[in-house]
């Protein structure tokens, strides 16, 4: 049985440099870095010292609040450096990779014979647990909790995003095995959020399909949950993405932590935008070296709406499956020719004050300029057009700014994540960094509830 969800509000922003559906092997990444900062609220506790030899699947560190949640090395090699930031906070664990990977091996996961508790135990010690996250808060799932349901969004509507069905093709067996593991973890159901018209996911069993159509953010897990069964205060939903399911599935079958990732390298700054095979924690340069055009570009791990600015030596984000390269916009724009009073052909805007509304399917080459200055809220109603939730975004944002926790709860903060506010942030006339505000609100609330 499948349920149809139609998202009406939102916007697909089309950027130049969309990827071809072809995959190359990325360069060998000399280092792999697992960054504890990729996991919201995690306080890492190292299990190994610098210089230790590790295999793929060897625990590097665990969660200080639950020492059974392990974070493992994606490759075999030597633990070269524990990178620390302010107040000696661990910000990265750097492993120098062997040429040939050797794995920690177990017998895999036999879903039928293991109880739920045993399965969770096995997944935690295998390092699979961080692959599953929860809403609200988008932290690593809490193994003591029973989630209402588990959601797996099977398409990504963000600009230049990889095609999930392309990633699953050829890996159907592992995907099914991963789904079988997930089904065991909840009393509720496992829902696949599938793009309308995509037949790739018809073959899988034990799950329910949600057929979703509409513009971005239709692919966001929060949007799918909200339009299917909204999260209530006190409830917990788990979610994970296609590549994470594949890792879980491969482990279930073979008993090895296979950290393979297919990462899209795309955007205006890329010569030949396409997919690359690499491993979790690989450095950005493994993909970008020799692939970028000359010029002043920003490299982003993740998509242009929610990703993180990175440099070639940084690692690709733990949960990211794309690298976007777009021009930096750090130049002055004369007001009549390119700036605020120009005719503005070729400028992207959701507001009809620019002519772009006449060409809704145009592909844009957008840079990182703020296109204005920061102001107090003036315009109203613009966020609502790209925010497909039954929530008043402006009121929620103001409640967060005021630090009014009770109001945040009443206005539905549990149903959203910062990524859902990416488009409202894009269209905001007053150039307010809304995602930062929402992140702060969720963080305050999370700490309040701890």
């Amino acid at each position, binding site marked *: 049985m499948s349920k149809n969800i139609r998202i009406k509000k939102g916007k697909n922003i089309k950027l130049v440099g969309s990827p071809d559906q072809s995959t190359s092997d990325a360069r060998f990444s000399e280092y792999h870095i697992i960054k504890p900062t990729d996991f919201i609220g995690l306080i890492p506790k190292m299990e190994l010292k610098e210089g230790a030899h590790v295999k793929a699947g060897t625990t590097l560190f665990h969660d200080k609040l639950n020492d059974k949640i392990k974070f493992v090395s994606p490759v075999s090699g030597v633990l070269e450096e524990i990178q620390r930031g302010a107040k000696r906070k661990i910000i990265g664990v750097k492993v120098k990779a062997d040429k040939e990977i050797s794995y920690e091996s177990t017998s895999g996961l036999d879903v039928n014979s293991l109880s739920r508790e045993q399965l969770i135990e096995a997944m935690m010690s295998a390092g699979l647990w961080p692959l599953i996250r929860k809403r609200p808060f988008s932290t690593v799932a809490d193994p003591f909790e029973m989630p209402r349901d588990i959601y797996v969004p099977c398409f990504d509507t963000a600009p230049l995003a990889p095609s999930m069905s392309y990633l699953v093709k050829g890996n159907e067996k592992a995907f099914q095995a991963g789904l079988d593991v997930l089904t065991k973890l909840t009393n509720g159901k496992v829902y696949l959020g599938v793009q309308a018209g995509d037949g790739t996911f018809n073959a899988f069993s034990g799950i329910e399909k949600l057929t979703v159509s509409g513009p971005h953010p239709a692919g966001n897990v929060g949007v799918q949950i909200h339009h299917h069964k909204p999260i209530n205060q006190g409830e917990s939903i788990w979610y994970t993405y296609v590549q994470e399911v594949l890792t879980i599935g491969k482990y279930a079958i073979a008993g090895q932590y296979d950290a393979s990732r297919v990462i899209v390298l795309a955007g205006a700054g890329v010569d030949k935008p396409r997919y690359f095979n690499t491993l979790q924690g690989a450095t950005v340069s493994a993909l970008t070296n020799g692939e970028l055009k000359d010029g002043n570009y920003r490299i982003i791990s993740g998509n242009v709406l929610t990703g993180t600015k990175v440099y070639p030596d940084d690692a690709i984000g733990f949960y990211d499956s794309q690298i976007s390269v777009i021009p930096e916009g750090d130049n*002055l724009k*004369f007001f009549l020719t390119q700036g605020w009073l120009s005719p503005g052909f070729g400028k992207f805007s959701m507001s009809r004050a*620019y002519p772009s509304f006449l060409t809704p399917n145009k592909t844009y080459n957008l840079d*990182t300029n703020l296109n*204005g200055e920061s102001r107090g809220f003036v315009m109203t109603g613009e966020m609502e057009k790209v925010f497909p939730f039954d929530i008043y975004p402006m009121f929620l944002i103001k409640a967060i700014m005021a630090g009014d926790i009770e109001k945040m709860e009443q206005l539905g903060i549990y149903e959203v994540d910062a990524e859902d506010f990416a488009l409202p942030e894009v269209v905001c006339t007053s150039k307010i960094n809304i995602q930062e505000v929402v992140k702060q609100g969720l963080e305050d609330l999370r700490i309040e509830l701890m």
Partner: protein
Amino acid sequence: MKFLENIVKKIKPNFEEGGKFNKYLSLYDTLETFLFTPDHTTKSGSHIRDAIDLKRTMMMVIIALTPCLLFGIWNVGHFHYLANGMEADMMTKFLFGAGRVLPMIIVSYAVGLGVEMIFAFKLKHGLHEGYLVSGILIPLIMPPDIPLWILAVAVAFAVLIGKEIFGGTGMNILNIALLARAFVFFAYPTKIAGEIWISDLGEKTVDGLTGATALGDLASTVGRGIDTPQVQAVMTKFGDGLYSMSNSFYGVIPGSIGETSAVAILIGAAILLITGIASWRVMVSFFVGGFAMSSIFNAAGLNAFMTLPPLHQLMLGGFMFGMVFMATDPVTSAQTNKGKWIYGFLAGFFGIMFRVFNPAYPEGIMLSILFMNIMAPTIDHYVVQGNISKRLKRLKTV
């Protein structure tokens, strides 16, 4: 424009921290960001941003106001020559009007931006754009002969008390332009009501041109029987006379500078609606509210004022101007879409009600919009509360 960019970049260090003109940074910043959309890039969150900013938004409103301004300038001249019984061509009328209106605009901007600049200096930021629109709105809702010093005081009051003490652009509760007008209205009532609406009115040579507005004339009928000669004299002006439907629609009637021409206002409305700057919900519901109230009055027909046909009623006074340029101010109107419907409807509804019921204030739109500005947060509160209770109910049913 490379040479301008080079100049800007060259002189910038002087204004930055440690430079010798550091205290004039706000002034420099204002000029630089006017000439160039700055080189600020995204630091957190979305890496790409919409091309829209507050400067362009405000400029769209100013463009939308231009037809009203141009027509208003002509209209001031037109009535001056008409009332004094002189022949004049279009250009002469326009020049006379410009001689009245431009000094008002200059004073309005000078005082308003001056006050804002003081706060910008104090808070060390560039000038915010809010006053760009208010600065032109305020002259447009004043009579042509308002003394410039009164205008200056009103502007200073509105910007200071109405906006800056609340925190500046985006933080005000009341519409700044209407607040300036309300200030004049209560502080200097003789300058903004009565027979002052024709510029430089000398000997009355043309019959019926008293210098009052249509609504002022109508207000004088209240309390008199419909059949009395004074009332009949007024009402004939509305048939095919000075205040006929077509004159009211095209705007060839005395009144505040920018408010008279429904045609010019509708051109502005079209610009605001196409660009999506103003809320169509507020405009539509405001019109419906006003139409509903005037239809009710028309049906009741208790006095001469009420017998005016509903559409004609709406073409007079500040109704159309208020609907398009005042009620739609995003900062002071309701912020939720549902709230906007309620807000607009009540503002239009009360506007006509105040106008007809209270002859002491011949025009009620200003007061009704200001009143609804105050009520808007309450309306939003109940709309948002509805959303909250829906969420609570869902929680209970699980």
